[in-house]
């Protein structure tokens, strides 16, 4: 079902108002961060005056994620947030200096909003979770734990260093990589069979497959072991994989919710996925805090038509982070607004074809 013009217009007005508020925050010397204040001083125009709508953000050149590498990380700290406890989350980093994002509350807010989308039947409040994903300096690690705590549960986790996995893959040491995966799955199975009454989990497509296989080898299954809700993420979430996971790895009684996200954006939810829609996965950003657009491969300022393929362009608009248009390493098809999310979505997300040859997908 598509959204009515009224709700779409309302969402657009909210987004524009949010843009004004966030631009005012980040470019006001009393509240903004050193990076953006310095940046604005070289622009030759005043963002606080010139940016009144979301479209006005296009006046900024594309954000370059390389700006996030290295220190001092406090250049990203808005003055208005000084004194708050801070976290630094890193992306990638299998070689060289990783990109980092400074944050205080955003990951909690994003995951509390996501929590509202989880069906109670399959993700019961008070139930314990397993975080079967990356450990270390990852936003995901703390965010999933917070999600679980927010819902009244206790989160168990495993040791998993994705940077090591990527190094193994790049070195062609696939057997070592599989042994490391077995080590991770072994930790997960140990937790799941230790009487902790775990009902929900986060995982990635590859780890979900590996866990299901190992449980099958032991004469049990994800469902039989007590899991009812699986929250998962990754660009490998193709319709075919989702169908395979739902039909053969999980079966009746286990709910799967694919998501799309990263350290910079937060979390985009999908519309419920299933056979009625041929397992098509359409993601919607948590607007107005983040916006996903699908833009032309040749001109990142132009949206493609609905149903057409383009590159994913991300905008992050929170008091902690301002990213006015960043080209993701993914592509997909532009999707129309729907009733639950009266703004544009993206489906068929996959690694951007021009970059995919040089991108190593590890365990997530």
């Amino acid at each position, binding site marked *: 079902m598509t959204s009515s013009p009224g709700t779409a217009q309302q969402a657009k007005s909210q987004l524009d108002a949010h843009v004004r508020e966030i631009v005012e925050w980040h470019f006001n010397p009393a509240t903004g961060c050193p990076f953006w204040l310095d940046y604005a001083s070289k622009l030759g125009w005043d963002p606080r005056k010139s940016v009144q709508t979301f479209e006005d953000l296009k006046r900024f050149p594309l954000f370059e994620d390389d700006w996030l590498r290295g220190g001092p990380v406090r250049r990203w700290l808005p003055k208005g947030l000084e004194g708050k406890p801070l976290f630094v989350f890193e992306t990638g980093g299998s070689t060289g200096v990783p990109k980092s994002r400074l944050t205080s509350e955003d990951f909690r807010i994003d995951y509390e909003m996501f929590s509202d989308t989880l069906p109670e039947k399959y993700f019961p409040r008070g139930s314990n979770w397993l975080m079967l994903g990356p450990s270390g300096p990852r936003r995901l690690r703390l965010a999933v734990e917070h999600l679980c705590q927010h819902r009244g549960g206790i989160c168990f986790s495993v040791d998993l260093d994705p940077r090591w996995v990527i190094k193994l893959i790049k070195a062609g040491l696939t057997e070592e990589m599989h042994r490391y995966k077995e080590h991770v799955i072994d930790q997960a199975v140990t937790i799941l069979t230790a009487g902790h009454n775990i009902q929900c989990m986060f995982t990635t497509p590859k780890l979900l497959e590996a866990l299901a296989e190992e449980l099958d080898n032991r004469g049990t299954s994800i469902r039989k072991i007590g899991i009812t809700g699986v929250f998962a993420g990754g660009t490998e979430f*193709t319709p075919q994989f989702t169908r395979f996971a739902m039909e053969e790895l999980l079966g009746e009684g286990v709910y799967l919710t694919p998501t799309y996200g990263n350290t910079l954006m937060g979390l985009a939810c999908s519309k419920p996925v299933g056979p009625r829609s*041929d397992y098509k996965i359409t993601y919607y950003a948590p607007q107005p805090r983040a916006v996903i657009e699908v833009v032309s491969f040749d001109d990142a300022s132009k949206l493609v038509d609905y149903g057409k393929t383009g590159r994913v362009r991300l905008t992050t608009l929170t008091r902690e982070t301002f990213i006015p248009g960043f080209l993701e390493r993914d592509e997909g098809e532009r999707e129309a607004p729907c009733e639950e999310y009266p703004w544009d979505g993206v489906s068929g997300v996959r690694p951007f074809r021009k970059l995919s040859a040089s991108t190593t997908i590890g365990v997530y």
Partner: protein
Amino acid sequence: MLNLPILRWGQPYTSLEQDEVVHFLTGKPLARVSQANTGLLSRDMRHAERARRMLTEIPIGDLINMMKKAGDLYLSGTLAMGDGEQSPDDFARQQSASTGLPEHMCKANMSKNHFVLNNMDQILDALTRGLPLNILTQGYGIEERGVVVSYQAQCPVLGLVLPSNSPGVHTLWLPVIPMQIGLLLKPGPQEPWTPYRMAAAFYEAGVPREAIAIYPGGADVGAEVVRRANRCMIFGGTPTVERYKGDSRVQVHGPGFSKILLGDDVVDQWEKYIDIMADSIFLNSGRGCINCSGIWASRHTKKIAQALAEKLGPIEAKPPEDPQASIAAFTVPGAARAIWNSIDMRLHEPGVTHMTAPFGHRLVELERCGYLRPTIIHCDSPDRALSNTEYMYPFATVVECPQEQMLGKIGPTLVCSAITEDQQWRRQLMEARHIDRLNLGALPTIRLNWLQPHEGNIVEFLFRPRAFQTAV
């Protein structure tokens, strides 16, 4: 257009991901092929043992008869194919349209496959060196000479990661089913035709559906086949060969670097052998690993290269349906140009002469594909960069090299036709461990004897002879 499903041990499964196989000249879709995800394959491997179990319930003699019937069906029958059906003519047209091989060569390949299936009893007898075949079923038995022998299957199914560009390779896996080992096939993206048609023929001939699985997909699916099958046959270039070197689970079929060596005792009569040389380079569009890519001699090499260039250089690219078409198209856009560029940049080395240059451009580019016309290069020494190269078209270098240095310089050689009566050199050739198939005398490299093993004996690859005793 046909829709070809994944075959999960015989059960059709239509994937939500499909790959279109298109006509290389027109772009017209020929088939939509369901693409497997790796998890699907690995999950289905739980049923691999069932494939062997079901096959061992059928006597090998019966399976051999099924192969003969399947051969006839494959050659002449109209068979169920995905959501449609396929006649032999459809098959040849479709295979030609996606691989670029001329149609009459596709038909010739069908005859080769048919021959192998129809002579399966003799082939197995030769490959097992006369072993009573029930020993493969039972695991042990007594040979005619009264000795107890035991052969243990090393895998329930053989994995195959098949190529797109060389429909001739399928003969290699045809003896697997009658040895009661299942087939786990990952077809080449442009050549799904043979695996599916062969599976259809096998099924119709009575082979249990549960014995054959087909998982089309990307490189990740190929890697999963290699990882999951305890014995696997794969096809690829030199990097693939290097990657799996020493891995006893994997038999890699890569470039052949096949050669003809002319001994000093016969080289003055080189004109007698020019047809053998030309056929070895050129027949079946020069695509096979058994096609000759190097002619080595100590003298007259320029004259030999000139004669080959005059014979092969004028040959033109023709449409695939033309009965006179003799070279295959490169159907991947840009592939022909990339190959030619890699040759061209090495033509400027001193001592290297492009002998086919006077016969016109070698690279012929059409809208959606490219051709490379036969190419003969002369190298005045084995040290020239082009002297030991292979490309998948009629391409050969004629290399000047003293006879006493040849065996040290030729490198790994799949087929070596050594034309010589020099007994001492013949002895050295027999001992040369970098030569796989050795032809002594005036034999083209492309002449196969089906009763001989190819790049390792498949029986030894799939079965391990071992000690076995039983208490009376």
